[in-house]
């Protein structure tokens, strides 16, 4: 139904025929490599990885958007009104423009929802133990200790399954709020940019001290002991939350509420009673007394045209059509009465099957120029209602907490960083190894393990990227660190 709408719309408005090519949701780089190498990649491609695009561009496999039929993108502005309305020229359209050559290999889609991470805690356990919602790291720690020490009260026969605080091997993402509370509030945008290529903030100043706290908690028996042994895609941790064994954790801002009837929250209520609930708390405060969260800049996925695209103009018109507010609203909501009902101030989505079923949340994989619900003033209400049967109050609390005191680090466009293309994809492995080992180390060994791991990280490309970014910042923006 949704694809038909796009095909028909493009045919009627621009006389362009659209064909969809499906690829793996989490393996798009592998799949695109194959398609590009075979020369049969679709005319419009989307990926989350800019270094991948930069590498394709270097090999001559991508259309330069500033050289379509010899003209820069700016010349086509008038026929692309929706694209220019939706995207900001500086933040999205020309974000990736090379400051020296003017080449433009990709357009950045916008991120409509920039909430990232929240801390969740079992509200019903706090009530049972007579504890208030924690407002500082110390109070949060006290809650975890209370969970640990009262396992029998809280879990009865399952007391030995108690996990006061759970995390996964993805330490950087899953404890970000704890760690970010240790970053000095006066850290400069320039320095954070130079050290910000790791999307888990590993190289931010004073990060180690945050990890040290988690290491201490681990050694106090507050953290799930086996977290490092369960790999990606394991549902074991979710299952523990659903069964009601986990007291607190940090995760994506709406994580326990995702999936409606099958969400962690809905399952938790089934297994631990109607009172059971994870609630978002905002309790990590930095040196300036602020609940600092580093939010993502409003850029997200990257759209590019492979060199085999012989009608780039038609592809641009496609981007314009897909950015039309009317198109976006239809793709995200569907049809009134079938897939949503209008309510005061927004829309309530209905459970659907068949034609109206969306193959990704809010059809974000069709609305390639915007990621997240984009309905103007109706967005907030619609978001809160979008998690039924989870109560909308929980969603509102979580959404507000995730953005409170948010900081978006300014990004400096330094063009292509070669070391990033070379090492960018292998560094996360070194990061995860370092953080996992450091967390499970004994408190005495913590420094040695952390420093050794950091040395490996820097030796295997981390330092090279820092050096190149530092040099470019000096060249282009005249910035030198103190």
């Amino acid at each position, binding site marked *: 139904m949704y694809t038909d709408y796009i095909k028909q719309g493009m045919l009627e408005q621009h006389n362009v025929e659209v064909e969809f090519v499906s690829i793996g949701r989490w393996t798009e780089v592998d799949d695109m490599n194959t398609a590009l190498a075979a020369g049969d990649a679709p005319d419009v491609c989307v990926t989350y990885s800019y270094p991948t695009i930069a590498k394709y561009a270097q090999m001559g496999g991508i259309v330069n958007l500033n050289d379509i039929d010899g003209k820069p993108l700016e010349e086509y502005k008038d026929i692309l009104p929706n694209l220019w309305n939706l995207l900001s020229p500086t933040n999205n359209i020309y974000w990736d423009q090379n400051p020296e050559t003017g080449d433009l290999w990709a357009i950045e889609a916008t991120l409509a929802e920039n909430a990232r991470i929240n801390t969740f805690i079992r509200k019903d356990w706090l009530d049972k133990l007579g504890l208030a919602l924690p407002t500082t790291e110390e109070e949060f720690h006290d809650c975890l200790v209370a969970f640990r020490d009262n396992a029998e009260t809280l879990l009865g026969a399952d007391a030995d399954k108690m996990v006061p605080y759970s995390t996964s091997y993805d330490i950087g993402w899953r404890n970000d709020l704890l760690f970010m509370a240790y970053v000095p509030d006066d850290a400069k945008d320039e320095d954070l940019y130079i050290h910000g290529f790791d999307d888990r903030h590993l190289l931010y100043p004073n990060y180690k001290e945050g990890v040290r706290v988690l290491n201490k908690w681990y050694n106090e028996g507050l953290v799930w002991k086996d977290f490092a*042994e369960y*790999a990606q895609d394991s549902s074991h941790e979710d299952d523990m939350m659903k069964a009601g064994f986990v007291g607190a954790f940090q995760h994506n801002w709406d994580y326990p509420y995702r999936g409606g009837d099958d969400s962690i929250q809905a399952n938790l209520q089934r297994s631990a009673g109607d009172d059971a609930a994870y609630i978002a708390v905002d309790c990590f405060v930095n040196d300036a007394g602020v609940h600092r969260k580093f939010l993502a800049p409003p850029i997200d996925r990257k759209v590019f045209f492979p060199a085999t695209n012989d009608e780039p103009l038609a592809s641009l018109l496609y981007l314009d059509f897909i950015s039309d507010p009317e198109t976006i609203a239809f793709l995200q909501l569907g049809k009134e009465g079938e897939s949503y009902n209008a309510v005061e101030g927004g829309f309530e989505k209905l459970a659907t099957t068949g034609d109206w079923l969306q193959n990704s949340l809010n059809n974000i994989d069709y609305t390639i120029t915007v990621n997240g619900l984009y309905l103007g003033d109706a967005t907030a209400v619609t978001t809160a209602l979008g998690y039924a049967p989870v109560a909308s109050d929980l969603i509102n609390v979580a959404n507000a907490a995730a953005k409170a005191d948010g900081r978006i680090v300014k990004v400096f466009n330094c063009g292509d960083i070669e070391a990033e293309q070379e090492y960018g994809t292998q560094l996360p492995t070194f990061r995860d190894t370092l953080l996992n080992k450091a967390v499970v180390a004994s408190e005495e060994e913590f420094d040695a393990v952390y420093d050794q791991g950091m040395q490996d990280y820097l030796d*295997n490309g981390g330092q090279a990227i820092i050096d190149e970014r530092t040099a470019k910042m000096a060249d282009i923006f005249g910035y030198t660190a103190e």
Partner: protein
Amino acid sequence: MNKGVIVPDGRRGTKSANFKSYMRRYGTLYLLLILPLVFFIIFRYAPMAYILSAFKQNNIFKAPWELPWAKNNGFEWFIKAFKDRTFHNALRNTLTLNLLDLACGFPAPILLALLLNELSFRRFKKITQTVLYMPHFLSWIIISGLALRLFAGNDGLINILYKRMTANPDASIPFMSKPNWWVATYVVLGIWKEAGWGTIIYLAALTNISPELYEAAAVDGAGRFKRIWHVTLPGLRPTIITLLIMNLGRILGSEFDRPLALSNKLVTDVSHVISIYVYQRGLQNSQFSLSTAVGLFQSVVGVIFLIAANSLAKRMGERGIM
């Protein structure tokens, strides 16, 4: 001298007539061969042309023969790999894991086959064999899931029992989280999965040993172990040698799903093998030339080991495989 063959009508044929009659008789067999040959040429030999990309500049948009040579006389990628510490680790881990697999995993099916062979209750033997084959059909992804439920440091079944037995809630064996323990788990799981399947070929060889030899040995007063030592094992020798040679040819080859599925971030120092290196660098980081170079290196070393083991076997009086 033209030997010729006797053609059906009894006359000595000329060369072309010989060929014609030969084809008349066996032509259909050659016809049958065409399909597999085409398969091998298209899917096995033609792609080998892309080995060239190990010596060329990295570009997925062009065929390797259109590309300029890589730096350092085409050896840029090899030099790069050998300067890369990650590759050194991967090479070391591949060798360690494969040698351990060979030392522990190779004798396992032989012992198992000997044990099975000594079983006289046929029905029990058949059932045991079938049960032993089963793990071979499970993928490593499934096994890794099972392994975690059994071996996880805290809530794995074995550690739960261990805690109860020692009455110490903090007792735990780090099967999956300490490098040495992980290697042991890796090897043991490999034996568990493949030993049963490996017995098939030995059991087949055992059926070829003449029962008269056993009878003669028994008459000479040989007990059960003497018979195994002097009759069964010598009978298995050619099979053992053949399989050993083939195993040595894979000494630098590495499985992909096994280390990937069993690994976790605490043991990457010992679990990161060449195939994972190739996957990360080649597929995820689009450095196809580098990963082709590494793959080529692996194959060349494999062939050298294969030939060396083969000639060694021949020198020791065995038949070898080539």
